[in-house]
């Protein structure tokens, strides 16, 4: 792609190319691409149940995407939203299974536990960066895997629940489940919480000193440092809060969808979130919309597999391509100094 093409038709061209590649992959799988897309759209938007399930996926993607964008805006690469989401879900599941108190106490406690779990995990990477200058990319990559292993060890080993059938905690008491937005679906108020958080983050970035400092640290670290912004401290705070957002998201999956922690609660939401954050241009409100688009892909892919016989993994493939295509400097400034 030449610079001119990128400047003028970039996003539209990119979307068309991605759709064409997806169509090609469907044809490779022996399916009519039109049937494939129709099955995908029908599976995601074909009725109230389908739309609700798409919104469940939207919610699951929204929190880690906001987390990734939050860190990006501060100039940090949080590749660890996946691990933070798992740790948040683990803490939420353990707290939720242990609490036998009314919902109005239990639910906030579960969500806060999730945020703390994610914050701790993000905070480790932030502390390594702030204290030792350790590369947060490496740290978060490693922490992702450690999170999965730790969660698996705890729920299968010392904290094994008597009623667990797999690597999971006990089921949460029904009073601790997030209230549903629409009865008899899996769509809970987590969606509303996510959108509210996006609006709040947009406000923080646009209208608060803290948000300004984060953006300054991300956009022009040297200028920010000379202006008296404590860069190590900002890095630590940003990674911790980013982790908290992802961990909160993990807690909403536990309390709102699965009603227990399961080590496989995320099919890679934390990684897809990077694509979502980029598509949303790192703007919290656009990320809500981008999460919906990717939610359609997530929830439609199963129906595409069932009815058009296209393996659902084609969606992951296209998401990977989308990240490559969208990660131009317009959205994310590549690192220009040793950091």
């Amino acid at each position, binding site marked *: 792609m030449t610079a001119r093409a990128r400047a003028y038709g970039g996003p539209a061209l990119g979307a068309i190319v991605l759709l064409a590649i997806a169509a090609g992959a469907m044809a490779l799988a022996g399916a009519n691409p039109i049937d494939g897309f129709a099955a995908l759209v029908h599976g995601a938007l074909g009725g109230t149940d389908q739309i609700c399930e798409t919104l469940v996926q939207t919610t699951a993607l929204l929190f880690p995407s906001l987390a990734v964008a939050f860190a990006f805006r501060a100039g940090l*690469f949080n590749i660890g939203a996946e691990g933070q989401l798992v740790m948040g879900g683990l803490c939420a599941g353990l707290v939720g299974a242990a609490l036998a108190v009314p919902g109005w106490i239990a639910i906030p406690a579960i969500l806060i536990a999730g945020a703390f779990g994610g914050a701790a995990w993000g905070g480790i990477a932030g502390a390594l960066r702030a204290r030792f200058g*350790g590369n947060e990319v490496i740290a978060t990559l*490693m922490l992702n895997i450690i999170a999965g292993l730790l969660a698996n060890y705890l729920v299968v080993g010392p904290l094994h629940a008597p009623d667990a059938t797999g690597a999971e905690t006990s089921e949460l008491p029904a009073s601790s489940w997030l209230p549903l937005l629409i009865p008899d679906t899996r769509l809970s108020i987590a969606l509303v919480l996510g959108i509210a958080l996006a609006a709040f983050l947009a406000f923080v970035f646009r209208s608060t000193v803290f948000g300004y400092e984060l953006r300054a640290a991300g956009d022009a670290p040297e200028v920010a440092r000379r202006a008296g912004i404590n860069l190590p401290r900002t890095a630590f705070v940003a990674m911790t809060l980013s982790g908290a957002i992802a961990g909160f998201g993990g807690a909403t999956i536990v309390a709102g969808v699965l009603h227990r922690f399961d080590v496989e609660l995320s099919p890679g939401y934390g990684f897809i979130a990077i694509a979502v954050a980029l598509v949303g241009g790192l703007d919290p409100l656009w990320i809500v919309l981008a999460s919906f688009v990717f939610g359609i892909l997530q929830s439609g892919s199963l129906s595409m597999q069932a009815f058009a016989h296209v393996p659902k993994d084609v969606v*992951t493939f296209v998401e990977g391509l989308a990240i490559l295509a969208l*990660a131009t400097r317009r959205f994310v400034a590549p690192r220009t100094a040793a950091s």
Partner: protein
Amino acid sequence: MESFSGFLALALVKATPLIFAALAGTICERAGILNIALEGALTVAAFAAVAVSFATGSPLLGLLAAVLASMLLCALLGIAATRFGVDQIVAGTGLNLLAAGGTAFALVVIFGQPGASPEVHALGDGGERALIVCAFACALVLQLVLDRTPWGLRVRACGENPRALLSAGVDPRRLRVVATLVGGALAGLGGAFLSLGELDIYSDGMTSGRGFIALAAVIFGRWMPLGAAGAAIAFGALSALQFVLQRAGVPSELMQSLPYLAALAALTGIVGRARAPAADGVSLD
């Protein structure tokens, strides 16, 4: 584990793909590309090896396909990072998703079943041993090339101060792409070893984080090929030890975590001050 020699043999088998991947990570980082797509490179290589061996009946052609597939994936990283201004980390993440999705998709399309391929013609004991020897040889050669050749000097300069290289009349972008190609070839050998050397099938997720362990090995090896290979051998031995210690009641998750915990420890500098190349992961623009 019946004997110490049995343990050593298992450790070597576990270490070999890690050595290849760690060498790949080292050459890329020394040139200034932080290649987090190594996991994806191992994945496409392991898959291509099995798919081509299945189609042609020749595991050697499978090995070749593995090297080419991995080179292609890594070249995408190199080109995206140097020509299109895509951030390396973001591109690497995208390539890992692309590799995971692409192989899972192709597995169903080619073999008609999800999860794992049927058994194919593998490289056999002789081929497995040859690749193990090759891994050690590559470590030695790469160290010599980096230390003693003009190209190695340029690669090191590209990772430390690409601008200086530019003023010396060498194009750092091109050098970085070449480094990702060399790294891709090495990772390809590692991926082929996983599916056609150690085993004779491909299964989804069979690389299980080895590309990330390799990045840890690079740090532990202080960005030196021999050091990275040494760290990879240590991690391979840990992996072999896991089977022994598990019987003694040590949680397998703890053993599996050790390379990653070691990498975190290395980031704090407590294992001696290891320093990444100054321009590692830094864009050229």
